[in-house]
């Protein structure tokens, strides 16, 4: 290294040296969110989604797609006015399943907000981890129909690259030139939380400087809803989490994508920081393939607090998993009550699935928006559709109307079928 360069460094740190400064919490890098994007039944971007959260608006409507009349479940949080040709060219539409389309739209919004350019060295230190449960389910559905029902013996050459679960992550990496670690996580309803937690860990440990993360789901088609009907846990009329008269979950669709970034790098470039990701924990019930365990959920909640160096009393809001099923909601409330003790009666916990439906593998990503809104705007998204108190869900679930409140730290819960739990902790910066 030349003396000239060394001298320059002493005077002011160069850009290339910046990412390697381990200015950290407990010897680890701090991780912040500098961009967010979404499309879901409530809106095609973050602003319209947050507006819906504030208004307590419901995105659940009558489903509209081929053969819907043969379903016993007729409602869902469907994106009705989706016109891919507004965003993608013909060749892209041939190659992108709906879950990829949703992801790319959300990712573009997030990257635009973050104001990042991944050309050059940054691209080598950036990657993408996304969650999805069904991947290109519409593509499976359409093509099974073609070969089984219609008796066709030929399918389009892009069927496999379109339906594979990593298609969305790969297209995001290609769109922005992210050449670091990229992969897809599939843990059913916790996929997005697992993905975002891993992205967080990667930056915190120094494995990457920027990660695009979140998840998406596009399961609202005949096969996707028919499969869920089989379990008999779906509501035919509404999603009413924590309400005594709740009668099941309602599916949704869409995507949420965030830019997670090394705090020092974000600060040095003057980025607008939406929130800090401070803790993450995963646990497994190791018990039942569909019935949740309060102990497993509680371990993930406690783990996220511990990982983030947070006292339970610091948590002002929890975005609940809150599916609106009999089993989840009472189990989740028991887990929160145990994990927080007396403080459980003081914190707020809402389920925004009552508005955007259950996006399965994409749900944690859209729900993280409610966490950011709580920290940044001081507005707590409500649990709408709440009608009757349930003694087994005796927490402040922010019924029906959004509430103004200042909170400094929040959690986002996700508890998946298969007993896989993932909880993320965010803090105001």
């Amino acid at each position, binding site marked *: 290294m030349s003396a000239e360069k060394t001298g320059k460094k002493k005077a002011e740190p160069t850009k290339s040296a910046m990412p390697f400064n381990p200015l950290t919490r407990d010897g680890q890098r701090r991780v912040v969110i500098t961009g967010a994007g979404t499309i879901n039944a409530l809106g095609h971007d973050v602003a319209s989604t947050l507006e819906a959260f504030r208004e307590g608006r419901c995105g659940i409507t009558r489903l509209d797609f081929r053969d819907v009349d043969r379903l*016993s479940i007729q409602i869902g949080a469907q994106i009705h006015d989706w016109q891919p040709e507004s965003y993608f060219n013909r060749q892209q539409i041939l190659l992108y399943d709906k879950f990829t389309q949703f992801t790319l739209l959300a990712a573009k919004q997030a990257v635009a907000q973050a104001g990042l350019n991944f050309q050059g060295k940054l691209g080598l230190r950036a990657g993408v981890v996304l969650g999805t449960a069904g991947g290109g389910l519409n593509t499976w559905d359409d093509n099974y129909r073609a070969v089984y029902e219609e008796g066709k013996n030929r399918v389009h050459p892009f069927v496999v690259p379109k339906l594979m679960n990593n298609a969305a992550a790969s297209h995001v990496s290609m769109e922005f030139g992210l050449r670091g670690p990229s992969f897809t996580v599939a843990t059913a309803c916790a996929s997005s939380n697992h993905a975002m937690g891993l992205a967080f860990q990667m930056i915190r440990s120094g494995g990457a400087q920027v990660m695009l993360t979140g998840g998406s789901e596009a399961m609202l088609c005949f096969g996707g809803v028919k499969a869920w009907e089989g379990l*008999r*846990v779906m509501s035919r009329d509404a999603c009413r989490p924590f309400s005594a008269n709740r009668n*099941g979950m309602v599916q949704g669709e869409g995507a949420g994508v965030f830019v997670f970034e090394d705090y020092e790098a974000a600060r040095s470039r003057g980025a607008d920081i939406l929130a800090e990701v401070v803790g993450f924990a995963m646990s497994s019930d190791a018990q039942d393939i569909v*019935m949740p365990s309060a102990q497993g959920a509680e371990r993930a909640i406690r783990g996220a607090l511990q990982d983030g160096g947070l006292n339970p009393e610091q948590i002002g809001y929890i975005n609940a998993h809150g599916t609106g*099923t*009999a089993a989840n909601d009472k189990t989740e409330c028991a887990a929160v009550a145990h994990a927080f003790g007396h403080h459980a009666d003081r914190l707020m916990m809402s389920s925004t699935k009552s508005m955007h439906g259950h996006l399965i593998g994409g749900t944690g990503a859209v729900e993280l928006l409610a966490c950011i809104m709580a920290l940044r705007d001081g507005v707590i998204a409500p649990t709408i559709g709440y009608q009757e108190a349930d003694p087994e869900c005796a927490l402040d679930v922010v019924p029906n109307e959004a509430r103004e409140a200042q909170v400094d730290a929040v959690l986002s819960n996700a508890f998946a079928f298969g007993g896989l739990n993932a909880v993320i902790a965010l803090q105001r910066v």
Partner: protein
Amino acid sequence: MTDTVKSRIKNIIAEQAMLEPDQVSDEATPEELGIDSLGLVESIFALEEEFDITIPFNANEPEKSDFDISNMGTIIAAVERLVAEKAA
């Protein structure tokens, strides 16, 4: 006919509970037979397939369903009713 329907129902439930059909009494509850919530949903599916009927059952509010799952007797009566309605 009713006896046949009843024995077919008991065969299905017995298979789910891993018991012999004669061990499934009319008074037995699904719980007593060792059938959990997922097992119950599976049994209901098997009954629907066997008799080509649709059983109204939401696992979130079993007590509100028209399909009474209190014990084997009520399950048999409900299935017999649905089978009769289908034949009518």
